[in-house]
């Protein structure tokens, strides 16, 4: 594992959080790809960041960027990652809010937006696959199946994400051999 410089961290976060539509989950997948490719984080660290950011109030991707920045470059890394992940898109939102009435009537704009969201959905599904993949080994498969079954059932029943996450944690804790994952 190597650590990025502060400049590398900030640049990577700024690039990956401000170039996709469809929400922060897409950005998280882009960040995962870039940071693991450079050897800055591994799959375990990514999973931990996702778990923590899911339990943090507010926007998931911003919490992810804060944990990423804090883990790799301390408080300054966390604050700068948070700033570059939230400020540029906020400026764009501000500008668009001013001119929205004109833009939303253009069919081409709506079509382009829909295509962008479709691409984003594929990235989100890829992100889910990368999270679940380490748990598909024979030792952890039962845990993965049990937690997934409970999570899917709760999602179908309309439970909030936080309740789904708590249920996942509870089911995983209740299963035998919690030390199975080394």
């Amino acid at each position, binding site marked *: 594992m190597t650590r990025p410089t502060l400049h590398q961290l900030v640049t990577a976060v700024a690039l990956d*959080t*401000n170039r*996709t*539509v469809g*929400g*922060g*989950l897409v950005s998280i997948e882009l960040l995962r790809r870039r940071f693991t490719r450079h050897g800055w984080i591994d799959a375990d660290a990514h999973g*931990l960041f*996702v*778990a*923590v950011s*899911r*339990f*943090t*109030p*507010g*926007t*998931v991707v*911003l*919490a992810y960027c*804060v944990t990423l920045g*804090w*883990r790799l470059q301390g*408080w300054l890394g*966390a604050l700068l990652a*948070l*700033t570059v992940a*939230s*400020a*540029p898109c*906020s400026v*764009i*939102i501000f500008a668009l*809010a001013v001119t929205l*009435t004109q833009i*939303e009537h253009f069919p081409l704009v*709506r*079509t382009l937006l*829909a295509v962008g*969201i*479709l691409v*984003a*959905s594929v990235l*989100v*599904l890829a992100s*889910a696959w990368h*999270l*679940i993949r380490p*748990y598909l080994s024979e030792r*952890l498969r039962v845990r993965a199946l049990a*937690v997934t079954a409970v*999570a899917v059932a709760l999602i179908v029943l309309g439970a*909030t994400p936080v309740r*789904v*996450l708590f249920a996942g*944690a509870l089911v*995983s*804790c209740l299963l035998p051999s919690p*030390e199975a*994952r080394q």
Partner: protein
Amino acid sequence: MNAAVIYLLLLKATMTSFAGMGSLPQVRQDFVETHRAVSDEQLSQAVLVGRATPGPLGGYVVAVGYFAGGWPGAVAGWLAMATPALVAIPLFAVVQRWLHLPRIRAAVDGVIIASAALLVGSGVTLAVDAVRQLTR
């Protein structure tokens, strides 16, 4: 509407939600129904802007802040969106400290697996939404 009030109201909404759009019901309650600072149409426009721009879906609160209080309101919206993320640092420190305990490791594993299930749900919702827009 005063920017400080906008910040506090939006912060209340973002601090009590755990996903980008999760704050929407609280935002509507405070800005549309209670204070009447934003209309339902403006709230819909804010959501559309949030969907149309890069970055987190929760960015719609910046547009809500703008509609409620001009550019100072937009700044308040940005701060209200960013502030809750700082809670992640103490949370991460606690999790990391106790991660060697098997039960904590199992709980974190459970959260990660459940996150994947939630992601599939979000991905499918996004895809359906996009196909609907394309076929409209």
